[in-house]
């Protein structure tokens, strides 16, 4: 489990580095394009046809060579960049909505960093809400694109920390989830078959929260743990039963009653 998490984290980090590198290249080229436009660059200016020794260079109507784009500038690559620009940001508008309600246009590098941070935050928030559907990250007030990026990063950190707590307190399937059976409902009375299946899962794989193979109960039975717990499932979403040991059930109870250190 840990190695999978570490692998996923490394893969994300690699993707992020690649993303930032590409964004930097695009940003550099956009600056070059902006400079060219500032220097009376005419995008409709014709080029010398291919086959000519000066093929590809800018020319004027009379066939003489005109002003070239600065080194590293874009030519028809600008179209690709315009398309990329149109896709970026929330809703593909090319703008990012800030915490103060205003919209701001990020640089390509900012857009890449923002999308990465937003994507990570949304993924983690989604995982938290599978366990605590009512949870929201602390709202942020931002006035700049950089502020919005920092806010997204902060949301991801907050969600990650809370997710760790939720797992520790037995909210949602635990790190040692190796199997479960469907729950017939929120009822705490179980058939013999259900008890046997939960005990088999517990004996074979351990408590779904901590992995202990010792149920810790006087009866020797694992506790059949509803997930989501009844207390945080008012909508009556389908639940499953997982084997849980007594200490983890205690911790879960403390959290459910608002007595654990939730935040």
């Amino acid at each position: 489990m840990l190695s999978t998490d570490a692998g996923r984290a490394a893969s994300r980090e690699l993707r992020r580095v690649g993303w930032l590198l590409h964004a930097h290249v695009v940003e550099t080229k956009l600056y070059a394009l902006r400079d060219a436009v500032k220097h009376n660059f005419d995008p409709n200016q014709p080029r010398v046809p291919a086959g000519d020794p000066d093929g590809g260079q800018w020319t004027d109507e009379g066939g003489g060579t005109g002003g070239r784009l600065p080194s590293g500038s874009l030519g028809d690559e600008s179209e690709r960049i315009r398309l990329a620009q149109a896709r970026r940001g929330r809703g593909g508008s090319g703008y990012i909505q800030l915490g103060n309600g205003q919209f701001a246009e990020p640089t390509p590098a900012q857009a890449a960093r923002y999308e990465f941070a937003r994507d990570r935050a949304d993924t983690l928030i989604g995982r938290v809400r599978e366990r605590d559907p009512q949870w929201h990250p602390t709202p942020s007030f931002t006035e700049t694109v950089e502020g919005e990026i920092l806010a997204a990063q902060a949301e991801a950190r907050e969600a990650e920390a809370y997710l760790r707590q939720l797992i520790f307190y037995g909210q949602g399937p635990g790190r040692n989830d190796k199997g479960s059976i469907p729950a017939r409902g929120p009822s705490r009375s179980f058939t013999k078959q259900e008890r046997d299946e939960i005990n088999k899962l517990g004996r074979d794989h351990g408590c779904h929260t901590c992995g202990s193979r010792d149920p810790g109960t006087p009866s020797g039975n694992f506790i059949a743990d509803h997930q989501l717990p009844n207390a945080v499932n008012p909508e009556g979403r389908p639940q499953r039963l997982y084997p849980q040991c007594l200490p983890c059930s205690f911790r879960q109870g403390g959290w459910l009653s608002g007595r654990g250190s939730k935040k």
Partner: protein
Amino acid sequence: MTVRSIHWPVLNSLLWIRDPTIEDLPEIDGVGAFWSTPSCVAVGCVPDCDGDTEITIGPAEAVGLESTPLFDRILPTPSRRLIVETVMKETILQASVRSAETRVRIWTDGHPASAFVIFGLN
């Protein structure tokens, strides 16, 4: 103060005793058989899926056992009441007390998931 007793399927194997006006509750780390703050005690009992727990509250001289109690401390009782509640905050037992501080002793069968819990008050 009269003796009250009940059999109850206790969710998450946890019972709490406290004055209803004070909500300074202990964090449950899962290790041990009880957890406390200066004004509240949580004690472990049988998981509901394994059956009911027998819970008793009353004067210590009437309900107490000869064995050493699991817990023996004075809790503040400014409302002159103590309640026994579950994780879902259902009050399942309560007792009136005479003073703003009450000595609370708790007896169990010694297992973290005890089949009975006795709250003896003075």
